[in-house]
């Protein structure tokens, strides 16, 4: 998992409330053998016509937001099915942070497992950032996990809360595997002892 420390980037404004995981990645893309590669199908049904053409009005199809790394979203982002394909698709597209007033619980946790930071802020803060996001490449938003702040392009800074352990894991890029790898000295030692005691294994 990639570390998340600070991020300055373009934010896509998606003021729609209740964006569910079916919208984020429709079910026909769950048969994949991959976690990666889902980015092209992110928001598939909002983004493409049934015959596969881009819908020009959709935010991520517009030149100003094609390179977005942040989404500023309406309430209750990520509700619906628990599919981990949703954060996989966001990440593959390049989104590392989603800002909203609220998130669905499972999606919220799945984000952390995949190196995405979901930030919960009060309505006024989200409104302020939404305005910024609407300016596209002209207004970059900065997210600082260490200091737990989000700064708008005019310098206004908003503080956010995050679980200390989740913060630790994200700052250091640690998932379960990462955490186990912190114990690699113990694994090395075990392997050495094992090679003596049970050389056939």
């Amino acid at each position, binding site marked *: 998992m990639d570390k998340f420390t600070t991020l300055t980037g373009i934010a896509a404004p998606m003021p729609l409330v209740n964006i569910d995981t079916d919208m984020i990645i429709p079910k026909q893309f769950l048969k994949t053998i*991959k976690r990666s590669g889902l980015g092209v199908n992110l928001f598939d049904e909002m983004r493409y016509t049934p015959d596969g053409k881009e819908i020009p009005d959709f935010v991520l199809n517009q030149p100003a937001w094609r390179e977005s790394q942040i989404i500023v979203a309406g309430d209750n982002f990520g509700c619906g099915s628990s599919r981990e394909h949703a954060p996989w698709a966001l990440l593959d597209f390049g989104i590392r942070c989603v800002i909203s007033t609220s998130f669905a619980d499972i999606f919220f946790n799945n984000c952390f497992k995949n190196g995405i930071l979901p930030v919960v802020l009060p309505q006024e803060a989200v409104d302020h950032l939404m305005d910024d996001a609407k300016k596209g490449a002209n207004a970059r938003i900065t997210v600082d996990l260490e200091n737990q702040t989000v700064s708008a392009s005019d310098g206004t800074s908003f503080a956010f809360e995050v679980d200390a352990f989740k913060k630790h894991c994200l700052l250091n890029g640690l998932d379960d595997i990462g955490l186990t790898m912190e114990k690699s000295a*113990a*694994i090395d030692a075990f392997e050495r002892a094992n090679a003596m005691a049970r050389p056939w*294994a």
Partner: protein
Amino acid sequence: MTAPRTLYDKIWDDHVVHTSEDGTCLLYIDRHLVHEVTSPQAFEGLRMTGRKVRAPEKTIAVPDHNVPTTAGRETHIDNEESRIQVEALDKNAREFGVVYYPVTDIRQGIVHIVGPEQGWTLPGMTVVCGDSHTATHGAFGSLAHGIGTSEVEHVLATQTLIQKKSKNMKVEITGKLRPGVTAKDITLAVIGKTGTAGGTGYVIEYCGEAIRDLSMEGRMTVCNMAIEGGARAGLIAPDEKTFQYVMGRPHAPKGAKWEAALAYWKTLFTDEGAHFDKVVTIKGEDIAPVVTWGTSPEDVLPITATVPAAEDFEGGKVQAAQRSLDYMGLTPGMKLTDIRVDAVFIGSCTNGRIEDLRAAAAILKGRKLAPGVRGMVVPGSGLVRLQAEEEGLAQIFQDAGFEWRLAGCSMCLGMNPDQLAPGERCAATSNRNFEGRMGRGGRTHLMSPVMAAAAAITGHLTDVREIMAEAV
């Protein structure tokens, strides 16, 4: 002096890398078996994070679930998703440098048959695979678990698994088995007695004279279905038979290492007075040839019984039994031996080994499939297939009218082209009779290879002892 320990305790203790304050352990994994269905996202995860497979020489990959069992599969797989998964395994295995048996390799087969056959599975080891029937390897006195895809990635990257210890359960089968009764009947009878949740939270150690008397193949059949009893793993203490089976296998230790291994393996037994949290005892002579009538592996009855009624059960099982009866198209009170079959499937990781094929062939020799019945034999590995051909078993099956297929999971789960049609009824040597398992709407009766052979001859579920009594 340490307190007396069970076999499970001993293997566990020898593999703990680290223990957290809350008792969660990091367990070292000696062998990681990999197949095409549950591994693609795990390898992908490694690629995305720039990680390597920590111990490629302890990681063994083989495609089995999706592969067709007909000729030409090396060059073409019709179903696109299956083909993509098989190709992904091929690419991942080569890129990450793990041990690999592609479909073109004579050693290819069902992962749980290939592991022991090649000597990867050894006593006292921890073995995992992204497949619940990994319990099979417990027959060698190894601790063998099924794991999920995220855990597959964890093991690939770290060669360890985060685990909490299970409780100890002892299943003792005393005395001798009667003629016509096999390892499959033992394991089904245990599930029939304990239920599919009876083993939940436990690791089972099978013991007793009837278990000792079983061959290694039979012991694998017993452990294979520990999972159907809800247990995480099932194991059997290694003995001379185990050592004989292992000796000389390609990846078994040789020379001085063999001697050292043998000395260690001989310490792998449950100490006198060790504590079991749960004990189940069944008399070997009480076990009859059994079949399943419903859609849960616990729906087990002796072949001499009749189809039960939903009212015979209690609680939530009443509704489940009714649903099973409807799905299976059975009427309460009818004799099990009056149930006609359309197909017979001999194979799977439960009963796809050479001994299973020998046993079925012994019944089928000189006989024919009943008219209208479709028969399929799918050896568990390319080597089992070869051996069966050399021993003349393949000829017996073909003379009887069976299709003689290439190795793979085949009909056991119908992810490949081998499937039942809706409403088709099958006598099967596999391990799951769930709705739709062998194909949408397909009806599965689980049984031993000899019982499946008997059903093939008569066209209905049959007590194999009657066939055995007939002189050929």
